[in-house]
């Protein structure tokens, strides 16, 4: 009996140790970034793990830069456009792929999956040509287009899976009620897909928000840059100085909204990722 209790206690201890390690691994870099951002540059290289006397000068400096604010605005516009566009396209695609039986459906799905395997670098030069040809270079549209291309395979797959799980009879009931495919999609299926839409939309948003390579390649001027590039290009007073405090403050400013978004939608995401089935 005692042995069993001991075993149970040890198991629990091990479990929490593991969680501690995971937490440390995931959260510590972010935590240290916050700590650093709250130090004046003079105290930057003193190792300390606690925030002793917070100093907000870095934040003030970052937020007073017009180009940085502009970059946040650009990022927001780009990410929101990508989410809207990707969700609309993938929802309609998922309706066809998940609901309609047609020849070559499996092939299309495999192709969509295949496309998502290309590394960004592999298509970078080709995409650059395309964007030049379309006259989109150094505009937000270049980023919206390229991010949508890379987000779509994922969103299509996820939504197709969810769509496939909705009961068939629901759609047939709508048909009997005289609903067109568009009405069926928007008024019957869409309301049931909200959790899935929130999940995929959020993931698409994060991907677009954090993207660096395309943003660096397809934009040139300060007015068009997005946040990741803007942060990378923050420079100090001299070429030999990296302004860590500023960088960390900017990173925190950029990351915190994401964390908040995820926390808000956390429950939706979980229910979206697990429960797709619904009971009539």
């Amino acid at each position, binding site marked *: 009996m005692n042995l069993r209790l001991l075993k149970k206690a040890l198991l629990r201890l091990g479990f929490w140790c593991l969680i501690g390690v995971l937490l440390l691994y995931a959260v510590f870099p972010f935590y240290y970034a916050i700590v650093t951002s709250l130090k004046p540059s003079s105290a930057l290289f003193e190792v300390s793990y606690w925030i002793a006397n917070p100093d907000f000068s870095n934040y003030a400096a970052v937020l007073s830069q017009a180009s940085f604010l502009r970059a946040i605005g650009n990022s927001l516009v780009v990410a929101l456009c990508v989410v809207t566009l990707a969700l609309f396209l993938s929802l309609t695609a998922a309706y066809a792929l998940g609901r309609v039986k047609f020849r070559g459906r499996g092939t299309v799905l495999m192709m969509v999956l295949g496309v998502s395997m290309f590394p960004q670098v592999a298509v970078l030069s080709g995409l650059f040509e395309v964007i030049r040809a379309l006259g989109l270079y150094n505009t937000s549209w270049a980023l919206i287009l390229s991010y949508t291309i890379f987000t779509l395979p994922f969103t299509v797959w996820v939504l197709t899976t969810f769509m496939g799980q909705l009961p068939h009879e629901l759609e047939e*009931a709508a048909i009997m009620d005289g*609903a067109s495919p568009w009405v069926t999609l928007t008024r019957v299926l869409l309301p049931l897909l909200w959790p899935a839409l929130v999940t995929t939309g959020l993931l698409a948003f994060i991907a677009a928000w954090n993207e660096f390579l395309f943003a660096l390649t397809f934009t040139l001027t300060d007015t068009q840059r997005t946040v990741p590039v803007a942060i990378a290009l923050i420079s100090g007073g001299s070429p030999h100085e990296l302004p860590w405090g500023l960088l960390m403050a900017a990173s925190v400013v950029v990351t915190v909204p994401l964390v908040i978004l995820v926390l808000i939608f956390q429950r939706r995401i979980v229910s979206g990722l697990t429960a797709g089935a619904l009971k*009539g």
Partner: protein
Amino acid sequence: MIKLKLDNVNKQLGGARILRDVSLEIAAGEFVVFVGPSGCGKSTLLRLIAGLDSICGGDLLIDGRRVNDLEPRERGVGMVFQSYALYPHMSVYDNISFGLKLAKTEKTSLRERVLKTAQILQLDKLLQRKPKELSGGQRQRVAMGRAMAREPDILLFDEPLSNLDASLRVQMRNEIARLHDRLGSTMIYVTHDQVEAMTLADKIVVLNGGRVEQVGSPRELYERPASRFVAGFLGSPRMNFLPVRLQTPGETSLVNTLVWGITALPFDSTNLAAGTHLSLGIRPEHLSLKAAEGTAGVVVTAVEYLGSETYVHLDTRLEEPLICRCEVSAGWKAGDRVELLPDIDNLHLFAADGTALKRHPHAIETLPDGVLLSPARASAL
């Protein structure tokens, strides 16, 4: 008046023939039940009528108009699904009014119609609830309300009661019957439950392997099944089948029954050869038992007590045991030896291909001294 007519309707799905040359006429206001084992095509047939599946060959006519290529909403049919398929995010009111809204019904008459439908189905107090807040029977009623709201001429039911528990099923069955009386609309109902079929139907259509086996009133089907399949499908416990051999063909057949020796039966077997294997069908309630003396008769192997009646299983040394439905007071026990007395008016004789032999109307009169011949007398014939 013929409301709906199926003319040699065929359905194929990936090479498999699901329905073969189904022809059927359904009168206005009739309650028709499609019944058959799973995979017999009954649900497919319903979906063809609804317009959810397309017809591969043949014609479907509603009010004399060919509707093969019309959309479901243009056919004037409403359907109740097995899983109800209510819109989970809409209230009862919205569920019922969805079709009306899509049909661009004017607002006041829409409200009126929804309220009227709700009243018929006793849903008045539940209109603002969501489907998840309803019980099984209430959901079932909402599903019916949704199908009824657009006032279709034909209502289709796809196994609507199979998700309910037994007592609720009986209750909903009665409600559907009452609904049919009140609305007077044509109803087509698919089920595999023969009790539902027998109690609800004006006309039963028995399907087997994509073919119509027999169409008729419940009573016709039960008392005069056209085939061994129909005979075995309707009735519980099912009809007993005894392998027999035709001794002398004729308007009255002499048949060697193994259990009763050679017996004269009122069936026309003129075009069959002597020696043909036939199968004799007897329903459990058409057998009566009498205590046998000594080692005569057959042995009771088991007795099932059901309260109102008992099922007595008998070992006849044939393929399957015979089942006899007896009164409880008879008090048979396993191990008893009994003699079997069939009710000659209610026997059925089936040819090897399963079709029922035609009953000879006057055969009984030609056999004045009883229905059974002793083996000795039969051999003298």
